[in-house]
């Protein structure tokens, strides 16, 4: 059960404060900030307590996302909730910055109202929420060098202008509604490699983690198909094909992904809802 939710800037300014159960006053925000800034380095910051009030927080976009609870509730759901909330706010506001949160406070309050009732999380899927949310997002337009670089010299078309700017995917999902026709889908493939090499030059460990992110701006998106390599094999299952195989230890998919064609043809079918969908592949 969530007692309160608040969002603080890195300097401790109150951006959003919502009390769900009337179990504690708003003065705890300052208590939290004092605690979190005074924390010594080796102390785990995730869960902190103040009397019988417990703070769970995550940091995203340079902001503190804090939930408090008085009962012995699940820290997993609280952390998961906060992460999802940050994700949702990013979807709705476009970016996740102090400015964006400050500008869209009415929207975020509305979101919080729908997402949590009396401390119980109701629904965090943007599909469901779009039926309820009324407020329009206000999107900040930061000055960006990228946009300048897109303008070719003397208006000439450059190579770059064919590539969407990297900030293209960071805009609110709702604004697409009235912008009308501009139906876009962004597919990001992100890979992270971590390698540990011993001081004697021996490779201790190497692993690669990756994910495919799909961000969809189509108002009513029909089904979409993503094909992966035929040679893609998972775990210890048999190798496929003849080419250089891609072998991953573990894959997990978002719930919107339909896997009926995956086993045979390595095709992911998904009907993305608006906003971000993640497929995480972790590869060793």
């Amino acid at each position, binding site marked *: 059960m969530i007692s309160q939710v608040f969002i603080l800037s890195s300097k401790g300014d109150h951006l959003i404060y919502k009390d769900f159960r009337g179990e504690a006053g708003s003065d705890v925000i300052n208590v939290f900030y004092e605690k979190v800034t005074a924390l010594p380095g*080796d102390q785990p910051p995730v869960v902190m307590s103040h009397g019988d009030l417990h703070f769970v927080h995550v940091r995203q976009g340079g902001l503190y996302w804090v939930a408090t609870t008085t*009962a012995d509730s699940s820290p997993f*759901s609280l952390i*998961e909730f906060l992460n999802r909330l940050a994700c949702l706010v990013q979807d709705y506001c476009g970016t996740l910055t102090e400015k964006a949160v400050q500008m869209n406070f009415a929207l975020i*309050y509305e979101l919080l109202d729908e997402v949590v009732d009396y401390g119980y*999380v109701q629904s965090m899927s943007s599909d469901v929420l779009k039926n309820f949310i009324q407020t329009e997002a206000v999107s*900040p337009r930061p000055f960006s060098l990228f946009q300048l670089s897109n303008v070719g010299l003397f208006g000439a078309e450059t190579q770059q202008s064919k590539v969407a700017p990297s900030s293209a995917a960071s805009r609110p999902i709702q604004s697409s509604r009235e912008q009308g026709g501009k139906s876009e889908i962004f597919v990001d493939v992100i890979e992270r490699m971590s390698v540990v090499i011993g001081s004697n030059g021996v490779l201790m460990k190497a692993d690669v983690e990756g994910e495919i992110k799909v961000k969809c701006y189509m108002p009513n998106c029909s089904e979409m198909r993503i094909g992966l390599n035929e040679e893609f094999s998972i775990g210890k299952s048999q190798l496929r094909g003849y080419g250089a195989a891609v072998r991953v230890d573990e894959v*997990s998919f*978002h719930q919107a992904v339909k896997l009926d064609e995956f086993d045979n043809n390595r095709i992911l079918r998904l009907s993305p809802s608006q906003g971000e969908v993640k497929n995480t592949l972790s590869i060793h």
Partner: protein
Amino acid sequence: MTDSKYFTTTKKGEIFELKAELNSDKKEKKKEAVKKVIASMTVGKDVSALFPDVVNCMQTDNLELKKLVYLYLMNYAKSQPDMAIMAVNTFVKDCEDLNPLIRALAVRTMGCIRVDKITEYLCEPLRKCLKDEDPYVRKTAAVCVAKLHDINAQLVEDQGFLDTLKDLISDSNPMVVANAVAALSEIAESHPNSNLLDLNPQTINKLLTALNECTEWGQIFILDCLANYTPRDDRESQSICERVTPRLSHANSAVVLSAVKVLMKFMEMLPKDLDYYGTLLKKLAPPLVTLLSAEPELQYVALRNINLIVQRRPEILKHEMKVFFVKYNDPIYVKLEKLDIMIRLASQANIAQVLAELKEYATEVDVDFVRKAVRAIGRCAIKVEQSAERCVSTLLDLIQTKVNYVVQEAIVVIKDIFRKYPNKYESVIATLCEHLESLDEPEARAAMIWIVGEYAERIDNADELLESFLEGFHDESTQVQLQLLTAIVKLFLKKPTETQELVQQVLSLATQDSDNPDLRDRGYIYWRLLSTDPVAAKEVVLAEKPLISEETDLIEPTLLEELICHIGTLASVYHKPPSAFVEGSRGVQHKRLAGSAGSGESVESPDTGSAAGVSEAPPAVIPSQGDLLGDLLNLDLTPPTATGPPPAAAPGMQLGAMDLLGGGLDSLLGGDIGGSPAMGAGFGAPPAAMPASFNAPVSGGLDDLFDLGGGVGMTMGSYTPPKTVWLPAMKAKGLEISGVFVRRSGVIQMEMTLSNKAMSVMSDFAIQFNRNSFGLAPAGPLQILTPLSPNQTIEAALPLSTVGPVMKMEPLNNLQVAVKNNIDVFYFSCQYPISMLFLEDGKMERQVFLATWKDIPNENESQFQIKDCHLNSDAASNKLQGSNIFTIAKRTVEGQDMLYQSMKLTNGIWVLAELRVQAGNPNYTISLKCRAPEVSQCVFQNYEAVLKN
């Protein structure tokens, strides 16, 4: 144009401006104004003055504006209850709006306004909304019942909302079911005894069906609710497990952990040889591993939980060591947790891998982490015996790095390895000594001094080394001072000739110049020991030390069991039971695992080893020097006074003395064993045995000693057996009762020691007896006035009368007792020595005795043998008299002493006895005659007990 302008600085008269804007006719302007108000509210400004104006904006068909106004209302209604009434009409109207969004919004907001007056108006709309055709409204209404219950519980019950809520469990929409379950669970927690959430196989089935269709958050409520259910048998528990297992692959970690909790709990009920049990174990590992690739915050929480799971069921993750290897970019708190789990999982199979990792960690830059890694190597050595050698060589490599904190940490760890494997790795001492100078932390210094003292005979210049430490004795911390004192005494005992001066010096430093009582007392004990009997001192100081084990850092089994029930909650992150941090009734239910097999094996005293090790010492000391012991005992004992010693003095005082001695020994021996409660118990036996063994060679010096031990018992009147455990903590939810029956100056008392081994406070004690053979009953209530907090022990003496209801028991002296406290009622049975029923006026006239003896028919006579009793007849007679068995006459026939004795029971039954003692023969013969021959067996047992102790 952005909303951020609302946050800009306040001007004077801002409220006034806002007021004007709120009353504007234009919708847009109104909306802007309300937004401004809410922005001020968020940053903590008081805008309650605008209440009436904002409420005026409420009647609008613009949903966005309505939501903003409601937001404001929720915040300020409490401070302006009278004004809030103004809003009621709009609420009631909104509850009947055509738009389900508005209906739900109104119900939701009304529930959040915590004003009593409003709740009255809430009932009708809520009733309608609970039966609304739109599931969105129903699910909102379900939660609203919980809100209302929190404000006015009576109202909710009176209005019958609880029944409606129960019906919603069978709703067609899974979201509604989930909210109804959540609301019911919450309400049920504040009424622990009501069976609101009546979990029976049918509802469970409904819940399991809803589980598949619900949103992830709803699944969490349902799984948490399932965890509270206790299946009837293993088949049901298996079928629930089967249906919960698919949740393990959910993307939401909270769902996964809730499912793990349910499975861990229900697994207890499955027989271990079942195939399914093995399958389930295998299925638990992958989801736990997957959690470790999430965000660091989630990883941390997951690791805290895995830490518990690994302690309870190491088999689940034993092959997954690799995932716990530390990544360079993990935050420090994740690294430390991973390290802990790595050690718990370390085994012979994977130790090479682990050591290579740990060695790598020990060369990192983060000092805290490096220290932990070095400690971890030591813990591996202690845990996995086969790896000890490799660990030691790894540690030596690390010492060679000469990084100051690594060296210090390594020395602390090596000390522990020496304790675990004595006489195995002493060859490394030379290397350690090289680094003596660089040690500046107390713990490392103390460890090094311990090593030097312990192995003084192998270190040629041990005296020089210790002397160098002694120079700055007063600047050292207590830890180092104590260690130095002990080490020098050890050195002296090993090399007495050359170190006399040194030991003098340290003893005077410790006893005269120090104001630390620990140090002073230890100094005095050594001093006395050394001055009275160096041989004994040697045996005490250089005694063999109990080995240390790797189990020291485990969570206590009962706590672990409780924490396993709270997997995936805050308790599992803090590693504390919920009662320690959640106030009030909510959530403070003590949960226990259901399986009985598990709890039986898990509770064992880790202290028995050390207690036994120490208790060998006193008997070894006694024969060699009686005076010394007397001296030592006198040191701490108030001399026994002849006039009425306090009750419970006999066992209490002896234990006290021994305990003190034990405490001293304990710290002499190990320094880190720590005074354990088991220690006292460990000494229970030797003092009881003492008088007997001293009886034969009664001599001047020892007489005092005898008086000290046995004499107290003499004046008291009876032999008091040591307390026995009547009710073990395992059977009584943590309450342990041990006790003894005694008769003191004509009053029968039941002396009990109650200890609380549970996590919660116990109070409201009461006691009752079942009917018994001699009509024993409590003469008053059980006097335990203060509540018993966890780990506390309390003594209670209960006077007994013999006027209670009578029923013959089998055996005759059996007593069934019920003890009640705030937690439950517990039953146990115990046997009392029949001697406590012997009256003080049990001495028969000789003539009467003779007549009675003849009068009782011969078939009532029973004969017994008491073997191995070395008392002469006078001593026996004295002893028995203490228990109100009176010798009436003594006859000597052919070197055989015949004692004629009588005793009288509280119910008026006389027992006559003839005890035959033959000099030189340790076997006595006893004949008992009584009109009620049933008691003979008991009386004989009593004879035996008294004479042999």
